[in-house]
């Protein structure tokens, strides 16, 4: 593996690039990869800093070799569930702590990711309750993502045709399938073929293995027509001959001990998976510490001319120019940027003649889940159960061939079982002394648990707008949330707890606890919608190639374009769609038709 930190070409703000890409996560990194491989000269602007994540993450450091056992230094505070629920944002306002970070920093080993996620004090937002997790650095959230790499299907793309709600996507599975294949082959994905029409298989590398209790549950659920499959991890388990910055996975297991991250980059991250290879083409210029606050417009044509950005270190502002502007700043940041980009041609914000930018915001609802005990495993010799990049995924089973009476769409479960480095049951086992030690030891490997992720319906009234009264550290007006879960989500969440219990009981797993509590909006970190695609410019923002209906040389390639949330994790779809759109854009740039 080579160090992912060699510099690219110098930034030259006098030239007109073929494309400016805003944001360097899954979407921006993919746009940079596709366009540079097609010979386009690309300027990639990232609001955050350049971090050497190989050094930040220290995936194999033992807790006892860290001065605070992985905890953050004094003065760093992770927001907790209560703080999100009893107060309204901005959550860090008037905090006594010098540094306030989002809830993911309350997980194990937060010291390793404290520089990857943002300090909430610098990045306020207002409005309704929302647990917004942001990473501002090269690669964004891909540096610590949960790695579940799933495909969507026509059950999602044509959901309206199935149940009448919302809108269909302007594409079908057949349109995107070749691009899922490209993403699979270029980045690597691990999984087990199941031939499910509602959870299409990828071109899988070596799958993750199951523990004995997971294999048992898989067998029992099969009798109910439900499918528990090894975690489909966006991880190269066999290695990638074409990428010298990433190693294959060695099952070291740090991925679930901490917020995430992989210091050998077996788990996909944008810096090593996409950006460094793009730099090797000689066509990519990366400028970190560059916060774009406006898409500029050619006064004659109304088309995008480039972007204005602030150097976050010097505070100086610059304009960069390009033939096309591609937003991949994240679902919420791209919407913010479009709404901030007001001009005489686009008084409502660029690309927003439909008044749909910021609306139809959707994600996944989570919280309900279950913890169970497999009694046959109590007191058994230690096995190695966490040395793998994920445990299991239980595919959606609601509203496929059946029709639930009180909610539409579906949910899947992510779960895990077996031994971990630090036994979680040590904090739940009563008593003290040798009997306590023995109980912790005997039961530590015998638990199995899972939690659901459900589709939140897109609704026009659920969204974000600009709050002109509150500004971030650099003086840019912030987002105001107007977003809550609705009736369909709450009924679906109630069903999650019921089916979780039903499945464990049917499998002979002793139910230890069932959680019915819904976590704060935003908890899934799967923000989607806000600039949805569609064929009708009056009710959608983008066409099927993620081009603005109003401004053909403006693309939005992150989760903003998704028409609904599905219940399946979005990252692989973001990258497949982006690949398809950027290939199309490259054709148009060559023809001079944008």
């Amino acid at each position: 593996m080579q160090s992912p930190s060699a510099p690219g070409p110098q930034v030259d703000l006098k030239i007109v690039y073929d494309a400016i890409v805003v944001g360097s996560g899954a979407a921006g990194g993919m746009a940079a990869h596709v366009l540079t491989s097609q010979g386009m000269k690309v300027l990639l602007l990232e609001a955050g800093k350049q971090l050497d994540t190989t050094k930040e993450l220290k995936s194999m450091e033992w807790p006892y070799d860290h001065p605070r056992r992985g905890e953050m230094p004094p003065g760093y505070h992770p927001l907790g569930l209560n703080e999100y629920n009893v107060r309204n944002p901005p959550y860090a306002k008037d905090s006594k702590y010098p540094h306030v970070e989002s809830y993911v920093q309350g997980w194990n080993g937060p010291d390793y990711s404290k520089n990857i996620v943002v300090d909430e004090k610098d990045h306020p937002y207002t409005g309704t309750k929302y647990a917004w997790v942001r990473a501002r650095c090269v690669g964004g959230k891909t540096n610590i993502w949960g790695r579940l790499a799933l495909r969507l299907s026509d059950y999602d793309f044509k959901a309206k045709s199935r149940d009448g709600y919302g809108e269909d996507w302007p594409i079908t599975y057949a349109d995107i399938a070749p691009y899922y294949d490209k993403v699979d082959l270029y980045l690597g994905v691990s999984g087990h073929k199941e031939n499910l029409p509602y959870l299409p298989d990828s071109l899988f590398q070596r799958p993750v293995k199951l523990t004995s209790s997971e294999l048992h549950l898989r067998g029992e659920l099969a009798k109910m027509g439900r499918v528990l499959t090894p975690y489909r991890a966006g991880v190269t388990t066999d290695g990638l001959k074409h990428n010298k910055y990433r190693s294959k996975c060695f099952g070291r297991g740090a991925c679930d001990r901490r917020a995430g991250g992989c210091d050998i980059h077996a788990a996909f991250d944008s810096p090593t998976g996409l950006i460094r290879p793009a730099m090797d083409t000689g066509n990519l210029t990366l400028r970190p510490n560059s916060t774009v606050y406006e898409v500029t417009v050619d006064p004659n044509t109304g088309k995008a001319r480039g972007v204005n950005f602030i150097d976050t270190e010097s505070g100086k502002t610059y304009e960069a120019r390009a033939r096309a502007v591609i937003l991949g700043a994240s679902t919420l940041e791209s919407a913010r940027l479009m709404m901030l980009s007001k001009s005489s041609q686009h008084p409502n914000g660029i690309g927003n003649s439909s008044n749909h930018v910021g609306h139809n915001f959707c994600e996944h609802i989570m919280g309900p889940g279950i913890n169970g005990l497999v009694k046959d495993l109590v007191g058994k010799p230690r096995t190695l159960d966490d040395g793998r990049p994920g445990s299991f995924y239980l595919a959606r089973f609601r509203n496929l061939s059946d029709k639930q009476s009180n909610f539409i769409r579906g949910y899947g479960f992510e779960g895990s079982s077996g031994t971990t480095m630090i036994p979680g049951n040590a904090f739940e086992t009563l008593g003290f002394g040798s009997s306590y030690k023995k109980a912790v030891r005997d039961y530590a490997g015998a638990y199995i648990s899972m939690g659901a992720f459900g589709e939140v319906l897109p609704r026009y009234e659920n969204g974000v707008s600009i709050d002109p009264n509150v500004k971030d550290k650099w003086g840019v007006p912030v987002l105001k949330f107007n977003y809550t879960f609705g009736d369909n989500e709450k009924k679906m969440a109630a069903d999650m707890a019921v089916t979780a219990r039903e499945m464990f009981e049917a499998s002979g797993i002793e139910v230890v606890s069932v959680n019915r509590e819904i976590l704060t909006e935003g908890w899934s970190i799967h923000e989607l919608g806000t600039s949805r695609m569609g064929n009708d410019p009056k009710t959608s923002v983008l066409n099927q190639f993620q081009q603005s209906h109003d401004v053909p040389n403006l693309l939005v390639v992150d989760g903003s374009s998704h028409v609904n949330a599905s219940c399946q994790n979005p990252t692989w779809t973001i990258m497949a769609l982006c690949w398809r759109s950027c290939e199309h854009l490259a054709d148009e740039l060559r023809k001079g038709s944008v």
Partner: protein
Amino acid sequence: MEGHSRRDLLRIAAGAVAAVPAVAQQTAETAASPAPLFFTPAEFQMVDELTEIIIPSDAHSPGARAAKVASYLDKSLAESFENEPRQKFREGLKLVDNLSTQLHKKTFVESTPKQRVAVVAQMARNEKTPKKPEEQFFVQLKASTAFAYYTSSIGIHQEMEYKGNTMQNEYAGFDAGLVPIQLPDSSK
């Protein structure tokens, strides 16, 4: 989701605490310990004894004393950003001595080993729903002790015999393609 609650529990456990350099692990128990940073020497002795009662050395593995749990608690309290955890811990130790005096007319450290265990047992009586201040202190002390112990070298390697955090070429476990198996033979 279990992952969430488990991680939150670890967080809660770590909330009042936070630090011991690796070097502390290597110091032999018999070597002269450096002066505590926050605790008085008497308090340190008391915490050392309390944590050892909660997680003792036994035939399976060394306990909290060998894992330098008191030293970890001392350093983390010393560097805590807030003053409240320090105050609460100090008050908690006073509650232990009050209870000990009430039960045995002796301070905790002056008591016999059997009497000390009886004091801890009294504090642990309502662990699920602690009401009295000394019961609440026990829950806090135990969570901190468990965190410090199970993240220590002794806790991870000797007590839990953790096999991971190594490079493997093949994942451990079972192929999903296998016909569902019976759980491992209980007679082994």
